């Protein structure tokens, strides 16, 4: 029989791999409800549907998996205009919601600081101290805390499992191990009267400029 379904199936999956497919089409600028279809720029501006299909797919938001796009080097967004300005990173996961009805939340500092500066969150959205913020899904859905970005620019709040991503018992074990390690360290530092919450992993520069314009 000349018809070979297996080949077709293999081709189909190969065309989908390695990333999630895009969920649908991107609206045309002239029909998107914000651009003036009679304006002179409408034929000059780039259509999302011309640029975004080339980036790793996702099912929500811009239908782009922005973290994959960045880490695979498909896009190389600049981290600064002034090359002397430091591109601060922190590789530290924070586990939230250890005992709730939903799986625990893993907040990855690294994925965030690849895009954002510390001052975008600290201290006006979150104090840089584990457990010091009353983070709640209610406030997030109102566009506060994580919801300042998620639901506006970063992937939307419908993607529950991208935040609630770790089984509770696993997160509890990880946090217990972190706390034991910190207790050991602060016992060792005890004589030097170090503050027990001091974080040895945080960069030497603390966020102080509050995200204010340097031009003003």
């Amino acid at each position, binding site marked *: 029989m000349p018809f070979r379904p297996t080949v077709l199936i293999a081709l189909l999956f190969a065309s989908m791999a390695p990333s999630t497919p895009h969920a649908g089409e991107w*609206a045309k600028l002239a029909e998107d409800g914000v651009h003036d279809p009679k304006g002179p*720029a409408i034929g000059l501006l780039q259509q999302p549907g011309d640029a975004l299909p080339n980036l790793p797919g996702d099912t929500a938001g811009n239908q782009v998996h922005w973290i994959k796009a960045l880490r695979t080097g498909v896009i190389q967004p600049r981290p600064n*205009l002034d090359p002397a300005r430091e591109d601060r990173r922190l590789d530290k996961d924070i586990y939230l919601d250890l005992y709730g009805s939903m799986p625990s939340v893993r907040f990855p500092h690294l994925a965030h600081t690849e*895009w954002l500066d510390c001052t975008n969150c600290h201290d006006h959205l979150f104090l840089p101290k584990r457990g010091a913020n009353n983070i709640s899904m209610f406030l997030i859905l*109102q566009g506060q805390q994580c919801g*300042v970005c998620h*639901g506006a*620019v970063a992937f939307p709040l419908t993607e529950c499992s991208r935040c609630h991503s770790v089984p509770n018992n696993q997160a509890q074990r990880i946090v217990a191990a972190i706390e034991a390690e910190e207790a050991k360290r602060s016992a060792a530092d005890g004589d030097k009267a170090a503050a027990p919450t001091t974080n040895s992993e945080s960069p030497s520069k603390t966020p102080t400029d509050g995200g204010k314009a340097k031009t003003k």
Partner: protein
Amino acid sequence: MSAIASARLMPALLLLGVALGTGVSTRSHAEYADVVLNRNAEKEGMRPVVFPHWFHRIRFRCKVCHAELGFKMRAGSNLVTMGDIIDGKFCGACHNGEIAWAPENCDLCHSGKPGLPPGIFGGHETNGPGIW
């Protein structure tokens, strides 16, 4: 794979392929994270400004605009004037004829539909900050 099983599987897979290839939904709303800036533009006879996050985040990380250049993360909260832009602030830090095209291309920024209020568009899930 037996002939019967593959015969049953094929239409489903082909449908899936067609759906993925051509897209199932045609969306008639703004691209996710588009921002309209219109505190004064329309009052002064220009179309509202449409700022596309998707286009800029391909080229710049958030920290460039929201830390280095000082754009506050709240649609409508930045008072941006043409004077600032021509002085090299806000959009003008890049739209200066060097990093990006110069401010004289009025219509590329002032491309919005008349009557739009300032705000974030395209977020069908939530509409961003509710309480400030």
